């Protein structure tokens, strides 16, 4: 298959996994920040938002320090579980997930804070436990705000370049995502390939935006 299409497939795979990871972790973190009162809450919030402002290369460096083969987590992962993250597509997922994480976390926190606490109280009085209140009241009411963040996170993960390059490298067919392939093609003077890759990326992004418009409900039933 054409290397361009392989890169596109890899980009989509990495972005989907990264978004799925962020969905679970970001919603959990956003909920905790919105509902739990603990000392240092705002500090935790700032740290979780760091990937948004730090240069991707700095993030990539941190990641290498932590999950690199000689990193404290990476060494343990490879030694006990035989899992290697550096120079693998899983490493690219991790890098993309961390870079895109703040989008989900921030929008989830705001969405949860917007849910009227009285509605949760009403559900409790009506006999629901904590988990049921979350899945039947809080999440459905916060869902729209969370989804907006999730779509942004997907777009950010899809286009991720710096941190991914540092952690996963640029191995064609294995870790060379679309945005990295563009860089490589331009560096190698392969203008024709670069043109194709750029067109592919642009088309994919338009498709994502169109899809987002269809998935995200413009109106929750009954709410104007």
């Amino acid at each position, binding site marked *: 298959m054409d290397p361009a299409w392989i890169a596109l497939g890899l980009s989509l795979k990495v972005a989907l996994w990264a978004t799925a990871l962020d969905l679970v972790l970001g919603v959990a973190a956003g909920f905790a920040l919105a509902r739990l009162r603990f000392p240092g809450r705002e500090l935790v919030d700032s740290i979780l938002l760091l990937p948004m402002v730090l240069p991707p290369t700095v993030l990539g460096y941190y990641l290498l320090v932590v999950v690199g083969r000689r990193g404290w987590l990476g060494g343990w992962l490879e030694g006990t579980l035989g899992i290697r993250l550096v120079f693998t597509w899983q490493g690219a997922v991790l890098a993309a997930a961390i870079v895109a994480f703040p989008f989900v976390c921030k929008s989830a926190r705001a969405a949860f804070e917007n849910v*009227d606490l*009285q*509605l949760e*109280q*009403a*559900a*409790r*009085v*009506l*006999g*629901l*436990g904590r*988990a*049921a209140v979350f*899945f*039947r*009241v809080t999440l*459905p*009411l916060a869902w729209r705000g969370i989804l907006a963040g999730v779509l942004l996170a997907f777009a950010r993960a899809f286009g991720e370049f710096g941190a991914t390059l540092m952690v996963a490298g640029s191995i064609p067919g294995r870790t060379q995502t679309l945005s990295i392939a563009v860089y490589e093609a331009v560096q190698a003077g392969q203008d024709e390939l670069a043109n194709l890759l750029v067109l592919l990326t642009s088309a994919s992004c338009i498709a994502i935006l169109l899809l987002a418009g269809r998935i995200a409900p413009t109106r*929750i*039933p*009954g*709410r*104007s």
Partner: protein
Amino acid sequence: MKWDVAITKTVGAGAQRFELDVAFQSDVERLVLFGPSGAGKTMTLKAIAGLMRPDAGRIEMAGETLFDAARGIDTPARRRDCGYLFQEYALFPHLTARQNIAFGLSGGWRNPRRDAGGPAVDRWLDTLELRPLADRFPDQLSGGQRQRVALARALAGEPRALLLDEPFAALDEPLRNRLRAELAELQARLQLPIVLITHDPADVDAFADDIVHIDAGIAIAPPAQFLEEHMMRSSARNQLVGTVSAIIAGAVNDEVELSVGGGQHVVATITHGSTARLGLAVGVPAFALVKASSVVVVADAGETLLSARNQLAGTVLSVQPGAVNAEVEIDAGGLRIVAIVTQSSARSLGLAPGVPALAVFKASSVIVGVTR
């Protein structure tokens, strides 16, 4: 004892600091917590429902301890079995009226379906005339309709008591009066204990069998003075003017008999303190106040024995039907007494002008006053 509450709670700090220290006992069906906004009424009600954890104290409902800080008892809200009507109704905006009503009937992590049914849902849709609105979302309902959906939702699970937070505050005046009457009738039909909090004296008039006055976080025990003042303003009253004909002193309460004209006598039970404060003695001019809603109409008293001390025989002068209730005026030997009864009782008793009837009210529901 239906309600035995003694709780304290401190929230905020500095200028925002608010201390709640409320204690009351009551054994009536309809209890009203009355006081200005920000006095701590909602906090008290939420503590009863299990939505606010007091710092100390205990809460008993019908003999069952729901909360006891000393013994470490704190039944979670979901097991307290209280219906709760929130001030702004707190309907789930993402669910239809039907789904809202069915909400508490199904456990699990999924909301009831749009076509959720079952006898309880259907019954409440019918009882509160919500069937045409069943598939609407809360923002497609008017204020009064929302209140009815919230009421149906609270009642569908057959709670042991209904807690109402300013149930009429969000409505405009004419609607307020109608829904007040509807709720009073529903409560009487279900025989469901209610605790209602309000800052509106009209709610006190319609619902208070007993009243706890809460102000600045503190429950004020003797509301007698307030009730007297309130009754003076109220339009739904019977004012019977006469003179004190006898006083039988008791340990706590005195029994005061008034001769009120037409050869009729009215007996009132008031506190020892009130007798002294009002300077009541035989021969002193005084008046008795009886709420029209406290007067029971007995159509054929032939063999019936009633415990109420005041039973004035007469004939019906007029029956004025209202939205839910009827106002019945009885002429008892020249004394005019107004009673408020439900339309259905007025019909089943066959109340009409000229029909002989007895106006009955308890000695404890009479308030005695003097004019100076």
